[in-house]
């Protein structure tokens, strides 16, 4: 059964970010993170887009935000840079030797990092949680 483009993108990003030994381990979440999850972790969430209608076949242009979260700024910066290394310019047409697989339903043609963001969230008098990441634009074609 065919997957929606957004599901294929979420799975592709999670697979990519958990393929190796990374600081966040396997803690990749979609939109919602359970209380008590240890730092650092990664959150991805839809930030715009849908069907692109640029070609006759089904296609999609999605904007997905991916951020690292930690209570240590140095850690979160390292994680954010690593996310960039793993995702930016790793669509099939960006890098045919090393690209994110969209599964059997979709080909992820290009992934482009766009705006970055930084948020410092004071959760107590002594703890600040940092959110650092970027928006990624994925252009996808149904296979």
């Amino acid at each position, binding site marked *: 059964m065919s997957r929606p483009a957004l599901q294929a993108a979420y799975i592709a990003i999670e697979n990519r970010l958990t393929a190796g030994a990374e600081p966040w381990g396997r803690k990749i979440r979609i939109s919602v993170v359970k209380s008590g999850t240890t730092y650092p972790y990664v959150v991805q969430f839809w930030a715009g887009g849908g069907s692109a209608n*640029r*070609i*006759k076949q089904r296609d999609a242009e999605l904007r997905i935000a991916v951020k690292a979260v930690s209570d240590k700024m140095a850690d979160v910066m390292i994680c954010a840079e690593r996310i960039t290394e793993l995702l930016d310019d790793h669509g*099939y047409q*960006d890098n045919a030797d090393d690209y994110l697989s969209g599964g059997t339903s979709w080909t992820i043609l290009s992934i*482009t990092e766009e705006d970055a963001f930084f948020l410092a969230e004071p959760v107590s008098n002594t703890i600040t949680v940092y959110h650092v990441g970027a928006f990624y634009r994925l252009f996808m074609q149904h296979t």
Partner: protein
Amino acid sequence: MAAYATNDWYFDIDGTNLSAYLVSVNPSFTQATVETTAGSSTDHVTRSPGLEDASISFDIRADSAAGYSLALLKGSHTITYGQQGSAVGKPKHVLPVILTGISHTTQVSKEMVVYTVNGDAASAPTTDMYAGGVWA
């Protein structure tokens, strides 16, 4: 009846079906006129039909699957176009063309690569949608 507003077209060059790659197409027809005004008391211009002409321009996307040869976008060819597909009774246009221009752009911003192609008629359409030509 309903206005036609979809992209279920048919488009081939020399029999190679490129419908899936087409982004837009614009087949055009022109009719020249010859002024035939005569007489000393004439108060209005009169004209007669002159030569007809036809051309076509289209945008077709590049595709990494190499679904067609770029050689099809240069030289002399026959283009067959069906505005509403290739069902019997729907408009059909078959035009021998000399392709006169082709261009494309690649951009660092990763915009989709599209070839823009222009062509002039080499002769009259063998099936002319503007004269009632349809798929048989």
